[in-house]
């Protein structure tokens, strides 16, 4: 115990390692357990899920929850799934097209009114979107968009985030390639589509994934602007499902699993993009 020999120092770091991993694993359990429980419950029968105390494993393994949600005329979960998929995909495309063009103009072109437009766009980043819900409801009502696909695809694309995010990215690109293209006689459109966009694939992918996630998960807006059971997206649909099944948890959890799968798969595939997008948005503040 006098001077630390290499061996005692070695066992101290080994002990540290053990503590570190024990902490990491304990935390991982806290974050994952609820999701695991969702899947387990979705595979139980109604009676198994009503047991007190609940059983750890689905015994017998049952497709009951999934059968219910796939064959239920009042709760067309599959239809909601398709609606959500369509809405989130179209929304994401709309954001990509409109935000990238606007961001490019704001980053690279000089024109009258640029300062004002940019200030207005950035200014709205500071207005909580929830405070615009009532007037926006009136606007989509006037457009006759209530209970249509457009109402969950279009209005959200007015968010300033995409423009802001891509403008930062375009400003960080070196000018040389665009200049070279100019010298070769390309016009702004050609430069944008053939030079800038291909260079921006990582940023575009990040924005596409984040827009998809936001739209897929949106709850507050769709529950007020979609009504017909066949028009709903998954989040308001899940609310309806809970209303009709109350404590029939295998069914409700099967619906939740169906709503989680695409985003969890997307997360696994595009983890780098999502995490980079999030961390980059923090550094700007």
């Amino acid at each position, binding site marked *: 115990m006098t001077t630390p020999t290499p061996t005692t120092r070695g066992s101290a770091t080994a002990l540290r390692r053990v503590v570190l*991993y024990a902490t*990491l694993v304990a935390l*991982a359990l806290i974050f*994952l*357990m*609820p*999701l695991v*429980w969702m899947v387990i419950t979705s595979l139980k029968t109604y009676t198994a*899920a009503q047991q007190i105390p609940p059983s750890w494993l689905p015994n017998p393994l049952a497709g009951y929850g999934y059968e219910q949600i796939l064959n239920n005329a009042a709760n067309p979960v599959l239809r909601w799934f398709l609606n959500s998929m369509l809405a989130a995909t179209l929304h994401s495309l709309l954001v990509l097209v409109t935000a990238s*063009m*606007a961001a490019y103009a*704001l*980053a*690279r*072109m*000089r*024109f009258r009114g*640029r300062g004002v437009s*940019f200030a*207005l*766009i950035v200014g709205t980043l500071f*207005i*909580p979107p*929830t*405070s*615009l*819900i*009532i*007037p*926006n409801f*009136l*606007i989509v009502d006037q457009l006759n968009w209530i209970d249509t696909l457009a109402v969950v695809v279009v209005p959200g694309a*007015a*968010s*300033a985030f995409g423009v802001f995010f891509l403008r930062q990215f375009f400003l960080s690109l070196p*000018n040389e390639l665009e*200049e*070279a293209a*100019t*010298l070769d006689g390309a*016009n*702004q459109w050609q430069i944008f589509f053939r030079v800038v966009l291909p260079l921006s694939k990582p940023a575009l992918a990040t924005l596409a994934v984040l827009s998809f996630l936001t739209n897929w*998960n949106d*709850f507050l807006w769709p529950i007020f602007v979609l009504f017909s059971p066949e028009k709903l997206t998954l*989040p*308001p649909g899940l*609310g309806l499902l*809970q209303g009709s099944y109350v*404590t029939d948890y295998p069914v409700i959890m099967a*619906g*939740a699993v169906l709503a*989680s799968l695409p*985003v*969890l798969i997307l*997360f696994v595939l595009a*983890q780098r993009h*999502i995490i980079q997008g*999030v961390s980059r948005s*923090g550094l700007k*503040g």
Partner: protein
Amino acid sequence: MADVIEVGAARGDAPPSAAKAPRRGASAGRTGRATPYLFLAPYLILFGVFGLLPIILGVWLSVHQWDFQLPNRPFVGLDNYKELFSSDSAVYGDWWESVRATAIFTVLSVPLLVVVPLGLALLLNRSFPGRTFFRAIYFAPYVLGVAVIGLLWRFLLDANLGLVNRLLGVVGLPSDTPWVTNMPWAWISLVGVTVWWTSGFNAVIYLAGLQDISPELYEAARMDGASAWQRFRNVTLPGLRPVLLFVITTTVLASANMFGQSFLITQGAPGTETRTVVWFIVEEGLRDNDAGRAAAMSIVFALMLAVVSIANFRLFRYRED
């Protein structure tokens, strides 16, 4: 912003091929005058209709008595605002109850949402095998929407059938806590679920900030014999200041705008004690058809948030250490 183009154009003189396009280098690319506006137009239309117009319309609505069902929508001046502040109006009690609920949730959740993710980020900011894997796991709940996590936690917190009480029972603690129906449990549940759901998000933002702090600073501090706590206090925290400001500001806003958790998990219970401002506004405006009053509430609420954000900014930006 403008310098980017100028600097670029100046550099454009250098390459020999510049001779091919005399006098064309003035802006990046040959442009018709209309081109910038054509690039902007699609977004600006969306932005005008769903970003700017609602601001103006919101103010306009707030000075009218506007019912979706009624043809007459008379101008009522500031009446909608006055009602929110006069204790004899019908809406006063519910409105301030919702403000109170929002304030309670914000005050309880923000400190945890600032500190817990910082702990996670510090834990993940070392190099060890499996780091990316654990980061992904801690972030995973955030990719799920509030509808999913709301239904999931309503179930997990169910007093009889829920996993939470079951686990507490297993370790010998009381296993009949009414998590979603009684106070103070309802607030504890809402805060706890939100911490579980969004900590990974803030942690990822902190991590990016931590990685921007120069390792040399830590090295220098270590050479001076600084303890781990001193290094945290004198290197990490100052280095994280801009990120901390961002996290605090955005977290306060996110918590103040809470809706889905209480709508789905406690369903406002007990009574309407956990009904938040956003919930009350949409209920008033879209369920009870009083869009004028709801618009006035939205504006008062946005102003409250602006005051809080400015206070935050002052507090954390200009405090000299």
